[in-house]
């Protein structure tokens, strides 16, 4: 029961990891370059590792790290300016107001900087892969090795991706700012897309045998919660947070004892995490409250659908009519063959398999769904419910040949064999 002394290096690195996104964000506003900002933040970590074991951890370690990193940033800006000799006046302005060590950092300023960092890391000039890697690195606090393991890519590839992303941001002179103009909605969409991609990468690994890589889901969920705090007036940010909380609530029920996937209808609802369900409802309520008369966006609508499932104590009690109606709204708001396929499933549950099959058959020629394993999988399910066993088996086998997920393939082949 005696208190154990903690390993100082480990404790310092932990504090740094927790504070790093805010430090990088605060410094990036000064140097206008996220790559340099990350290096300066690392310098502050080195300073902490040198000084804290001797002097003790400061009362406000985040402010300490921020002050050191910002001082170095200002030194750097000054050196640059001396070199070019053009912006000497601005250098004097910065020099006259150096941050004081005990000065409490204004949380609102830090939030603003963090939001700038979010929009920069998720900037549309970057590829989706680059945005994912940069967001996990700068905001999620993941190391390059952790990102590589998470996205199933070799570490040097991910390292290159991050370096190139930082270079692209610098080369295209991407402004370190929060967009407020006409492009804001699209830019917010780009941020949410990155978080959703990260979550889905973890939720249903499209390649490999891991059905679920929960680490990434949780990273995405944490980022979504952070975003909801940074942009409390954006309905879709709450919508995304709600969707992810509700989907994550089913994580424990989604895989069986040997890691095999368990479909929604077969899941033990007692294993759905009710704390996450409640958090999902609360976030959905915020999405509805902030929509302020406008219709819900695609993430909030998907969250509302997930909430319908969460409300049902059994699969049979699910309000399929409500779900079909929500998919109708979603199809109107964000039309896509995948949404239409999901609507077909809901309609089949509300009105019977024949009504669902009619909708699915209308999608058969859809080029976007060619090669998409869920189309034959859904069709097989509907045919099986209509008693057309041979047709159903052929569809399940086709679906199995199309999926890249080993565990899902096994599930589909088992269904084919059961017809």
């Amino acid at each position, binding site marked *: 029961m005696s208190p154990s002394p903690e390993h100082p290096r480990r404790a310092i690195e932990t*504090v740094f990891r927790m504070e790093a996104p805010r430090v990088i964000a605060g410094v990036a506003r000064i140097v206008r370059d996220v790559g340099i900002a990350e290096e300066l933040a690392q310098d502050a970590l080195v300073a902490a590792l040198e000084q804290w074991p001797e002097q003790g951890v400061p009362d406000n370690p985040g402010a300490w790290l921020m002050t050191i990193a910002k001082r170095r940033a200002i030194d750097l800006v000054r050196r640059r300016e001396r070199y070019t000799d053009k912006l000497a006046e601005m250098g004097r302005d910065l020099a006259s107001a150096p941050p004081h060590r005990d000065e409490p950092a204004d949380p609102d300023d830090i939030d603003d900087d963090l939001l700038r960092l979010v929009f920069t890391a998720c900037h549309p000039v970057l590829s989706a892969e680059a945005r994912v890697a940069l967001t996990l690195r700068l905001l999620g606090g993941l190391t390059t090795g952790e990102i590589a393991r998470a996205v199933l890519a070799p570490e040097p590839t991910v390292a290159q991706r991050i370096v190139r992303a930082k270079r692209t941001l610098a080369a295209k002179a991407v402004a370190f700012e929060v967009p407020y103009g006409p492009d804001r909605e699209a830019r917010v969409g780009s941020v949410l897309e990155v978080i959703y991609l990260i979550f889905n990468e973890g939720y249903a690994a499209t390649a490999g045998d891991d059905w679920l890589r929960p680490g990434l889901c949780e990273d995405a969920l*944490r980022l979504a919660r952070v975003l909801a705090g940074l942009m409390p007036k954006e309905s879709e940010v709450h919508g995304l947070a709600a969707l992810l909380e509700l989907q994550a609530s089913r994580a424990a029920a989604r895989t069986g004892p040997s890691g095999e996937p368990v479909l929604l209808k077969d899941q033990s609802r007692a294993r759905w995490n009710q704390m996450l369900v409640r958090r999902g409802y609360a976030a959905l309520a915020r999405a509805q409250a902030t929509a302020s008369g406008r219709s819900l966006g695609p993430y909030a609508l998907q969250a509302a659908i997930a909430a319908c499932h969460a409300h049902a104590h059994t699969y049979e009690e699910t309000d399929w009519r409500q779900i079909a109606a929500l998919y109708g709204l979603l199809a109107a708001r964000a039309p896509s063959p995948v949404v239409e396929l999901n609507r077909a499933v809901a309609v089949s549950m509300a009105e019977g398999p024949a009504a669902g099959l009619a909708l699915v058959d209308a999608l058969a020629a859809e080029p976007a769904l060619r090669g998409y394993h869920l189309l034959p999988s859904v069709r097989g399910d509907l045919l099986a419910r209509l008693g057309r066993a041979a047709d159903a088996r052929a569809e399940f086998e086709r679906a199995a040949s199309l999926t890249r997920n080993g565990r899902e393939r096994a599930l589909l082949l088992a269904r084919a064999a059961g017809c």
Partner: protein
Amino acid sequence: MPRFLTMIRVDEKNAPEGGPSPELQERMGALLEEITKAGVMLDTAGLKPVAEGSRVTWDQGELSVTDGPFTETKEVIGGYSIIQAKDKAEAIEWTKRFLKTHEEYWTITAEVREIEAG
């Protein structure tokens, strides 16, 4: 990313009369906001006095219910939090920050336990 249950144990008899000071409540509120904004806090609450609690025991096939207060207890659980953190080191760092919001005359022990996944 594991979840942690932190149980806050306080010595009810030596706890300051009148409960937490307004300053403490303010510092705690600011910290809770910070933890929530960091996407870490999932759920937290204080508990009513242990005197109002009950213990239900299953022992050798016998059920018994004992109402508080429990004379033999020195430290009681005064509150809890459930957080999601990257690892135990982060959970401990947040816990330290929570304890540091208290005045020096408090004696509190926070027990940090990882929640079994699945």
